[in-house]
């Protein structure tokens, strides 16, 4: 586009006779300038320059990721920006009890899991970032990191593998870690079992919190159960594909890609009072009875809060 325009249509090759060839460079520049004004406003030159600096930094790889592969710039400027309208306009997420999350230092957020795809995790990330300015570091199943594209995006968004090594490393470094102990049992459960908490794994997250002495913040999410009501499953095909379940919703696969649009349910998410673990000795993390008890306490808190929130919500789409 910066090439000088051909003086006349005298060329003999197809390139010379290209229709855009006859437009003078000055016209191109003028058109671009008005387009830039349209997009970036009156301060377009400065805005555009800043955008180009950003673009060059990305293209030349001069940004940094942390040891888990978290790309803060990409997450904040792109991923969260895409998710924010969904959170505010589509699901109208109402956040409660944000003051229960410590403003600095390690803490473990433990949440219920639902919705066929882990949309609840994404909405929690946006909510915590917007309300508190902290990055939530989700722990994901190894299936997530085995999948191409999904695993890469997950790491760039700050996730890492749900294993005690990574969880404790992050908590010791003062990160805010999110865990969904129900895992695939939670998001893949049928619609008829909505808001019934599944088994909480083996309580590994409690051991990690005990070992690092960080508080556990229970999180109850209401609304995610209704976004893709799971009415059926094709276990045989799921097994062939190596995935935990293959969902059938009222609209998927019936309506094809249209069926992928989540239903606009009303969401309430509430962070409960933190459960302190620093009173225990780190060696008590290996005491199975204590781990069971704390796991149960967290699970009960979330279950009771879910029932209460359901009562407070006017209707599914309210």
């Amino acid at each position, binding site marked *: 586009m*910066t090439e000088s325009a051909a003086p006349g249509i005298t060329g003999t090759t197809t390139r010379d006779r290209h229709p855009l060839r006859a437009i003078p460079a000055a016209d191109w520049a003028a058109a671009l300038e008005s387009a830039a004004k349209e997009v970036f406003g009156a301060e377009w*030159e*400065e805005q*555009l*320059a*800043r955008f*180009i*600096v950003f*673009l*060059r930094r990305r*293209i*030349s*790889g*001069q*940004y*940094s*990721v*942390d*040891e*888990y*592969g978290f790309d803060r710039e990409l997450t904040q400027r792109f991923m969260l920006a895409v998710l924010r309208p969904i959170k505010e306009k589509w699901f109208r997420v109402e956040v409660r009890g944000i003051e229960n999350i410590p403003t600095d230092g390690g803490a473990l957020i433990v949440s219920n899991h639902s919705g066929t795809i882990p949309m609840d995790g994404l909405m929690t990330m946006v909510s915590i970032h917007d309300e508190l300015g902290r990055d939530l570091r989700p722990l994901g199943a*190894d*299936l997530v*990191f*085995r*999948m*191409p*594209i*999904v*695993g*890469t995006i997950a*790491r*760039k968004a700050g996730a*890492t*593998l749900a*294993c005690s*090594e*990574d969880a404790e*490393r992050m908590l010791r470094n003062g990160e805010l870690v999110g865990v969904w102990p129900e895992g695939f049992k939670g998001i893949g459960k049928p619609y008829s079992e909505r808001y019934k908490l599944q088994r909480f794994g083996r309580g590994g997250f409690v051991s990690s919190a005990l070992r690092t002495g960080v508080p556990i913040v229970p999180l109850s999410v209401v609304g995610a159960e209704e976004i893709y009501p799971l009415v059926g499953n094709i276990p045989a095909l799921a097994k062939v594909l190596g995935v935990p379940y293959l969902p059938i919703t009222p609209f998927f696969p019936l309506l094809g890609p249209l069926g992928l649009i989540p239903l606009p349910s009303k969401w309430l998410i509430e962070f409960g009072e933190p459960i302190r673990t620093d009173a225990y000795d780190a060696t008590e993390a290996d005491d199975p009875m204590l781990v069971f008890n704390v796991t149960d306490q967290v699970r009960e808190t979330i279950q009771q809060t879910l029932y209460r929130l359901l009562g407070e919500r006017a209707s599914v789409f309210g």
Partner: protein
Amino acid sequence: MAERTGPGRVLLVTGVSRDLGRRFARAAARHPNVERVIGVDVAPPRGDIGQVGFVRADIRNPVIAKVIAKEEVDTVVHLSVIATPGTTGGRSTMKELNVIGTMQLLAACQTAPSLRQVVVKSTTQVYGASSRDPAMFTESMEPRRTPSSGYARDVADVESYVRGFARRRPDVAVTVLRCANVLGPRVDSPIAAHFRRSVVPNVLGYDPRLQFLHEQDLYGVLEHAVRAGVPGTFNVAGDGVLTHSQVARRLQRMTVPIPEPVFGLTRFGGGEYPAELRALLTYGRGVDTTRMRSLLGFEPRFTTEDAVRDFADSVKPSANRADRALAALESRLTGAPR
């Protein structure tokens, strides 16, 4: 410790036919505290070895024991565990050199009364690379999947023999250095060759985390290990991690995504991708270097980023048109923040 750091040390360095061994041996021979250096390998060195005495011996046969006894070697630096067959022949020869060679060398060391110290260059590839890996491996963690073949398996075997030797000779300080992928302008390794291609293949949908050790830091840590004599196993890597896409962009390389099932079958301009490199390029790996600093007391001069920058100076950019176009646009705009 005093006699170890005192003058008159006698070093035996294996694997001097390769660049790493040759350069290390030559530098060690110049050190004032070192009386003499004996280099051993099956093939003669490819370049100048300075004052290093070269013994052409196969560490797979018992000749090596005689050399150690006769020369009163007090320190063995084992650098001949190799990642690529290179000039030595095929994969079976490589395995024999790596595994049987180490067994023979350690058998010779076992009976040597003069021996005080053994330093083995291992690699972080012993941790493997898989989707079930923790983000950062510490020295006490085991690989999630034990490698069944290839270089990674060789190294795992070598390390287990070294551990056995350390148990049998508690009077010898055994240092195992698990080094991250080495990068530098002169390095010729599978991953360096990978990034030197003008078009770099990457695994579709994966952007692995990579960690590098600059070649100068590799020499640095070997020298430090010989001098300090701290027994134990240590991860050695430059600070920080970079993703594959970042490295490719910093080197101004064009990348071509290849689906994972096809990646192993494709041959890229004659270049081969061994299983362990394919796993690394899919899942990536990070190692924790806390022990390297606190116990071994080594501080690398280059971070992973620095190593890539230094490497970038030695490769010609192949895809920088987008950046050039943006730079041109940027310079035309006034008020560009500098």
